[in-house]
């Protein structure tokens, strides 16, 4: 089991319960779960409040982006005339972006009752001046296409931060002031001296 020490800043703020050691359990499994479903890795580690926070905010951002883009802004495509690079960021949310891979692998996309062609790659024409489905989608959705793409991309990128947090514990922002650190070092030296370890 991997454990990370308490926050250095926690020593300056006794009121905050950050002094407890964080049990990361199996960090690699936690990181994988965190990628699969935002917050799942933290739930596995027993860090429930952070699990709920990541689930709500990351998935909320992703779903709102999908909503703005009518479920079409997340799709996987490596076609010559349509390389969907934003999907590399969107896949950061894991399972919720996976239907795009299934839709991309199919010849005829699956149809869902709540959204036609959900996460299916739009048809693109090989002819340069031909208006294809992607053109029509972008025209119809206008700026919501961009909003939806940005929201879903940011959700994926935020989940990468959450995955790192599940793997390595929180990266604390502030270090303890030098005098506090010196006191702590002295305490540690005293404890080592008592133990006779030297």
């Amino acid at each position, binding site marked *: 089991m991997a454990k990370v020490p308490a926050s250095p800043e926690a020593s300056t703020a006794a009121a905050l319960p950050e002094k*407890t050691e964080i049990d990361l359990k199996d960090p690699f499994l936690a990181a994988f779960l965190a990628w699969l479903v935002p917050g799942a890795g933290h739930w596995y580690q027993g860090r429930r409040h*952070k699990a709920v*926070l*990541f689930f709500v905010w990351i998935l909320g951002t992703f779903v709102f982006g999908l909503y703005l883009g009518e479920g079409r802004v997340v799709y996987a495509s490596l076609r010559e005339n349509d390389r969907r690079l934003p999907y590399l960021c969107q896949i950061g949310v894991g399972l919720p972006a996976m239907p795009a891979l299934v839709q991309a692998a199919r010849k005829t996309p699956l149809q869902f009752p709540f*959204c036609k062609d959900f996460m299916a790659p739009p048809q693109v024409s090989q002819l340069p001046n031909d208006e294809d489905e992607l053109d029509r989608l972008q025209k119809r959705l206008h700026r919501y296409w961009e909003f939806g793409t940005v929201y879903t991309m940011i959700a994926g990128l935020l989940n990468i931060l959450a995955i790192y*947090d599940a793997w390595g514990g*929180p990266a604390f922002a502030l270090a303890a002031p030098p005098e506090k650190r010196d006191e702590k070092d002295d305490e540690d030296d005293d404890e080592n001296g008592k133990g006779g370890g030297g």
Partner: protein
Amino acid sequence: MFGNLAWPLLAAGHINDLWYALPLIVAVSMVYSATRHEAMEAILAGALRIGAWITGFMLVVFAILFAISSIL
């Protein structure tokens, strides 16, 4: 979900595009702060600080761009 239901909400108010930044600022602040703290109080305090910083930064950029566009 996404088809017909989306448009009443979006078309209703003709929301200024800048408002779409607000949920993103909140989400980014909360998640970023949560990756740097463990206690909920510290997360919320950090999120407030980061959110204020991002908003301030955006306002400064807005002011600079506005000034440039006024001059040109």
